[in-house]
C-alpha cells in the first residue's frame, strides 16, 4: 500500500470515463469515415480502448476474470479480427474503396439524437447500479446505437460487418460498465461467436461479389432474376 494510492485510484476511475468517451468518439468517427481501410484502423483503436477500460475496471475492482476477458478482447479485436479484415479487403480488392454514402452530416446529426436518447435512457439505470463504471452505461448504450445506425446507413458489405463488430464492442463495454463483466463462459461463447461470425460473413461476401460483381448489398433486395 503506497501513500499515493488513493490519488492514483481516483485518476484511474476517471480514466475509465476517458476510455469510454474514446469509445463513443471512435463510434462517431466510424460513421463519418468513407474509406474502408481507415474504418478498420478505427475499429482496432476502439478495441484497444475497450481493452484499456476493461483492464482499469479489473484492477480497480480486483476481479481476475476481467483480466482474462481483456486478454481475449485484445487477442480478438485488436489483433485477430483486424488482420482477418485486412486480408479480406485485400482479397476483395476494396482496400481503397471510397463508399458513396448519403450525406454524412445528416447521419451525424441523427447520431447526436441517438446519443441524447441513450444518455437519457441510461441515467435511471445507472442510479440503481453500484458498479464503479456505472456512469459510462449511457456511453456504452450510445455506442451500440451508433453502430446500429452505421449498419443501417451503409450500402456496402464490409462496413456493415465492421458496424456489427463495433456494436459487439459497445455491448461488451455495457456489460463491463453495468455489472463488472459477464460470466466467463458467456464471454468465451460471445468471443467465438464473433469470430465464427466474421468467418462466415467473409465467405458470404465472396459469394455476394461472385453473384453480383459488387459488394453493394442493395442487390440482395431483388429476390428473382429478371
Amino acid at each position: 500500500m503506497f501513500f499515493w494510492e488513493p490519488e492514483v485510484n481516483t485518476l484511474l476511475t476517471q480514466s475509465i470515463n476517458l476510455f469510454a468517451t474514446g469509445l463513443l468518439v471512435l463510434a462517431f468517427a466510424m460513421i463519418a469515415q468513407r474509406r474502408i481501410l481507415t474504418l478498420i484502423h478505427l475499429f482496432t483503436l476502439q478495441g484497444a480502448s475497450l481493452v484499456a477500460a476493461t483492464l482499469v475496471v479489473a484492477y480497480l475492482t480486483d476481479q481476475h476474470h476481467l483480466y482474462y476477458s481483456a486478454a481475449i478482447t485484445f487477442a480478438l479485436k485488436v489483433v485477430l479480427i483486424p488482420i482477418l479484415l485486412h486480408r479480406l479487403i485485400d482479397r476483395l480488392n476494396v482496400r481503397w474503396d471510397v463508399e458513396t454514402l448519403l450525406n454524412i452530416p445528416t447521419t451525424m446529426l441523427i447520431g447526436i439524437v441517438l446519443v441524447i436518447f441513450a444518455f437519457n435512457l441510461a441515467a435511471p439505470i445507472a442510479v440503481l447500479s453500484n458498479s464503479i463504471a456505472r456512469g459510462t452505461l449511457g456511453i456504452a448504450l450510445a455506442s451500440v446505437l451508433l453502430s446500429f445506425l452505421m449498419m443501417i446507413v451503409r450500402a456496402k458489405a464490409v462496413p456493415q460487418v465492421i458496424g456489427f463488430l463495433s456494436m459487439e464492442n459497445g455491448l461488451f463495454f455495457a456489460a463491463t460498465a453495468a455489472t463488472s463483466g459477464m460470466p466467463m463462459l458467456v464471454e468465451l461463447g460471445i468471443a467465438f461467436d464473433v469470430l465464427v461470425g466474421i468467418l462466415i460473413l467473409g465467405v458470404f461476401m465472396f459469394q455476394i461479389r461472385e453473384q453480383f460483381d459488387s459488394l453493394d448489398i442493395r442487390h440482395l433486395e431483388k429476390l428473382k432474376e429478371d
Partner: protein
Amino acid sequence: MITLSGFVSQLLEIILALALAPLLTGWVNQWRAWLQNRSAPSLLQPYRVLHKLFNKESVVAESASPIFRIAPYIVFGCMTLVCAIAPTLSTDLPLAPAADTIALVGLFALARVFISLAAMDIGTSFGTLGARREMLIGFLAEPALLMVLFSASLITQSTSLANIVETLAHQPFAIYPSLVVAGVAFTFVALAENARVPVDNPATHLELTMIHEALILEYSGRHLALIEWAAALKLFAYSCIGLALFFPWGIAGAGTPLAMLVAMPVLLAKLAIGGVLLALIETINAKMRLFRVPEFLATAFLLAVIALLVHVLLGA
C-alpha cells in the same frame, strides 16, 4: 479594482503578444519547411516582411470607401484585445471583464465581418469570392468554438476566460473526458479559423483555392502589414486560448506576480511545442476540397456537442 501587479501583467501580456506573434508564425513556417524537406526561411522573416511593408507606400483603389481604409485598424484592434483578454501569463488581468468567452467569439466575428466587407468593397471578383468563403467558414466555426468554450464553462461555472483558467489551473489534477473531446474540436476550429492546411493554405496564391489570401489581395503597404500582423496575432491568440484551456499549468494566478517569471518560460515552451505540432498537422494533411470544409467543421461542432453531453452524463 486595478492593482499594480494586475496592470503590469496586463501590459506585459499585450507587449508579449505583439512582439511574439510574428515569431510564432516564423517558427511554424520554419518547421513546416523542415518537415517538407525545403530550406527554411529565417525565424525572423515575418518581422522583415512587416518592416518592409510598413516602409512601403499604401496604394488604395479609387473606388474604395472608408470601410476599406479602416478595416485593417479594426481587425488589428480586435486581435490585440483578444490577446489582452486571453490569459497567457497571468489570470490577473484588468481587461478580462471587458469580454467573456461569448464576447470573445464576437470579437473574432467583428474582425471577420470587417475584413469581408473591405474585401467586397473594391468590387473585384476575387475579393467577393474570398469574402463568401470566409463567411462560410466563419458561420460554421463559430458555433463549434462556442460549444467548446461552453464545455469549459460548465466545468468551472464561469464564462470569463480568466476565471475558467484560474479554476482549471489551480485545482488538483483530474481527467476531464469532456475537455479532451473539446480539445480535439478546438483544434479543428483553430485550423479552420487560422486558414491552415486542411482548410486553406496560407502559403499559396493559387486562385481557385485561396480564402484568406483572396480577402487581402487588394491591400498593400501599411494596411497589409497591419493585416498580416493581425493574422499572426490571431494564431497567437488561438494558441494561447487552447493552451490556457487544455494545458493550464504554469499560468500565474491573482496575487502572485512573481509566478509570472515561471509562467514566461513555460508559455514559450508550450508555444514552441504547439508550433511544431501545427507544422506537423499541416505537413501530413492534404488540403481538402472547399465543399468538404462544412463536413470538417460539422465534425468539430458535433465533437463539441458530445463534449457537452459527456459532461452532463459523467459530471466530468
